[in-house]
């Protein structure tokens, strides 16, 4: 998407009387004026206006000025959730970033992601040929050996490289439920991190590759734990002409079904007070990408219902939850370009966890797990972060 396609929406945000300024997660913690939502849009509005009324310089020269500014947001969607017009300001930012990149003004950190993604097929630049190296090989081998399973497990980059226990826990849950699942061995990054940074071409290459790889496997259901991958496969792939044949199901939905069907039984007890942190890609973004309305089909309840069925687990809701949840700052762009702000954003979520009286943050996203764990370590807090599959696997 390019800014011309978002002209009406950009104009509205550009002239907004600052109605989401205090709720924007990045701006609230950073305070710089260029991170304010209306300013980011005004920079784009100026370009659009000059396209209509040409000046003595090409309008795109302003993209250079806009370049840094457009990356000063988590894309977490707080603005949209609070906005009385439900404006999809995130789509405005992605459009602006895409134009920035295509005109050669990508900030160095974004260029770096492009190179890493092209070289190693993941935004982190971890070696592709080591993608599954951190996962317990006995578990992995079982998945690799299966012929024509109907269920597939999508691993995702963050889990593969940094949080392998999430995959191992999911595998244990599937084993306990007698579900014989396979994986997509040719799996690469889903492309959404690149798309969100404006690296459209890189993202589209990854999407095309993955779509073919998935469709060749012949799964009926593909279980996806990473919310970013979930959203990419569900919304972005079809949008870019890559229909995915298996049904895409979030891991929490899949576990919920196993529990409801009685295929999965949770035997032992955990004694933890847990707060669930809604990742923004599940809680307010599982909508088709080219629409403005706020979506109501987001995944709010399955993670909660799974947690509530864990024997002994006590759950306390965070003050800001579901579509009004605070984002945690784990987004790759902010982590790379503004690590200090990313930490402060994460700290807000952890403050809410402490206020709620929980000792564990349950997450439905490997990126949230990684980021919040690091924030806890950095700030020397006495909290644990655990993914939902891990918490469930503890009871098997």
């Amino acid at each position, binding site marked *: 998407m390019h800014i011309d396609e978002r002209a009406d929406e950009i104009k509205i945000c550009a002239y907004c009387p*600052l109605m*989401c*300024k205090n*709720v924007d997660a990045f701006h609230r913690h950073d305070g710089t004026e*260029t991170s304010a939502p209306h300013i980011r849009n005004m920079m784009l509005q100026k370009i659009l206006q000059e396209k209509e009324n040409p000046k003595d310089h090409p309008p795109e020269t302003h993209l250079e000025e806009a370049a840094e500014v457009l990356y000063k947001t988590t894309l977490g969607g707080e603005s949209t959730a609070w906005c009385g*017009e439900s404006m999809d300001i995130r789509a405005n930012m992605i459009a602006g970033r895409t134009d920035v990149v295509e005109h050669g003004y990508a900030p160095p950190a974004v260029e770096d992601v492009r190179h890493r993604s092209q070289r190693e097929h993941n935004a982190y630049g971890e070696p592709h040929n080591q993608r599954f190296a951190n996962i317990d090989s006995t578990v992995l081998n079982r998945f690799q050996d299966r012929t024509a399973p109907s269920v597939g497990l999508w691993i995702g980059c963050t889990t593969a490289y940094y949080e392998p226990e999430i995959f191992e826990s999911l595998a244990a849950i599937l084993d306990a439920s007698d579900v014989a699942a396979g994986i997509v061995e040719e799996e690469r990054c889903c492309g959404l991190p690149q798309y969100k940074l404006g690296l459209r071409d890189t993202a589209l290459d990854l999407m095309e590759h993955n779509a073919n790889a998935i469709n060749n496997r012949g799964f009926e259901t593909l279980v996806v734990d990473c919310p970013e991958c979930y959203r990419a496969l569900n919304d972005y792939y079809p949008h870019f002409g890559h229909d995915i044949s298996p049904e895409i199901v979030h891991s929490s939905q899949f576990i919920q079904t196993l529990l409801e069907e009685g295929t999965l039984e949770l035997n032992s007890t955990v004694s933890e007070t847990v707060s669930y942190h809604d990742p923004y890609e599940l809680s307010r973004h599982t909508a088709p990408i080219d629409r403005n309305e706020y979506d109501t089909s987001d995944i709010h309840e399955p993670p909660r219902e799974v947690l509530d069925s864990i024997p002994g687990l006590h759950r306390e809701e965070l*003050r800001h939850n579901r579509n009004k949840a605070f984002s945690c700052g784990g987004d790759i762009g902010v982590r790379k370009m503004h690590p200090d702000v990313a930490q402060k954003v994460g700290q807000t979520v952890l403050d809410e966890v402490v206020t709620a009286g929980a000792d564990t943050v349950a997450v439905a996203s490997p990126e949230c797990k990684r980021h919040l764990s690091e924030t806890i370590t950095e700030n020397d807090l006495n909290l644990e972060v655990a993914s939902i599959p891990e918490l469930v696997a503890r009871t098997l």
Partner: protein
Amino acid sequence: MSRISQSLLYEELRSIVGEENVVESEQEQVAHSMNCNWYTRQLWMDDEAIPVPAVGVYPHTTEHVSQIVAFAHREGIPVTPFGMGSSGMGGNVPEYGGILVDLKRMKDIVDVNEESLTATVQPGIGNWEYEDYLNERGFTSGHLPASHYSATVGGMLALRSAGRLSTAYGKIEDMILGMEVVLPTGEVVKTKPVPAHAAGPDLDQLFVGSEGAFGIITEATLKIHHFPDERRFRAILFPDFESGYTAMRKIVQKGLTPALARLYNEEETARTFKETWGVEKEGAYVILSWDGPEPVVDAKERSALEICTAEGGEDMGADRGREWWENKYADYYPNEDSVQNYQALRGGHSDGMAGTVTTSVPYDKAEEAYQAMETAFEEKFGDEYTAWIHAHFSHWYNSGTMFYSRWHIRDIPADTDMLKLYNEVWSTLVPISLEYDGVVDHHHGTGRLLGRFLRKQDEGSHDVLANIKESIDPKNIMNPGVMGLGGH
């Protein structure tokens, strides 16, 4: 004015607040001038020069602010305090360059005293964050302006802001108990947060509403309240504006203190009913609410409804009132129509503009004052342009009321001098308010836009303000130009 070099300026400020809290980028300085200011936004869009600060600085502590201001005083550098930039009156625009002190990184909630019901905060906390924090603990500030998501506590204090529930909870100047202020020379004054005193004049009231001209507010202790057990709404439709106005006056003067109290004129009423509920209705529409223990709310509501019925009011039920409350910010989100004031920019030209006059007037003059404004506006601008004005009365006192007149002008020819036209509107409307014993403004402040009218508001008071300014800010560095003081 200072002759200090840019690099020395940066160096000095970095040594006070640290490198990460000094922003040097040109973009950042430009962004600081483009908040709710219609005119600077227009100029920037057209690549015209706009006033920008030489440097933006983000203090974290009172000590930082004190050192920055002391340095500015020594060097004679202008200082503009900045909250969230939601004021459209221009007081947040650094007209004379210099140092812009952005207070948004001073945003701690220092203390909440649950027994004395007070909260002490740093000035840069956003009102939404502040209220959210209190609500989570069972309290409320009672201050909910339409800029809930875009104003800081410091900025609201600096402009004597009013929230939607002001008829019961008061304006922000009624909520302040004690303050810490860095004076234009860098010294710090701190007043005790006591409920009342007779130990000389109330210094807090000198700084509240001083628009950054008398110093920078660095901490404030405010009243807070238990979140009400009961919050009840009621909507009433009166046959005409006069009957609604009389009922509202009587309700307030009888001590039935509604929290929310809004009366719309006939045009606004017709529009609201049609657009919101799809019903054609004539008359004047009122929304009321009460906060408090249930029996108290019951009693107040019952007595108020009796007054409304006696004045011919038709009870429209609780739901319409509640619905308004639940969508209380809805009118402020931009849409296709409202961006009309900016969107048709052609060579720097917008074909629309809009603004709001807020004033408070004694009861015996308010209706007349409003009618006079409406007539003058339509006569002056109605022939040449598409122009309309509408109003609601939404903050009520024992002796008078406040009205909020929103004016719009559209279809402005491309060769029009926009700034001249804009100023002409204010020059038409504000003197009418003064003529009917009203004020220059009720809750937006005067800034650079309306400061010029302040001298005409009260007899002799502007000279007193000017003398105070001169004595506490001998080098005229603190936000020169606001309130008609110290501009060049």
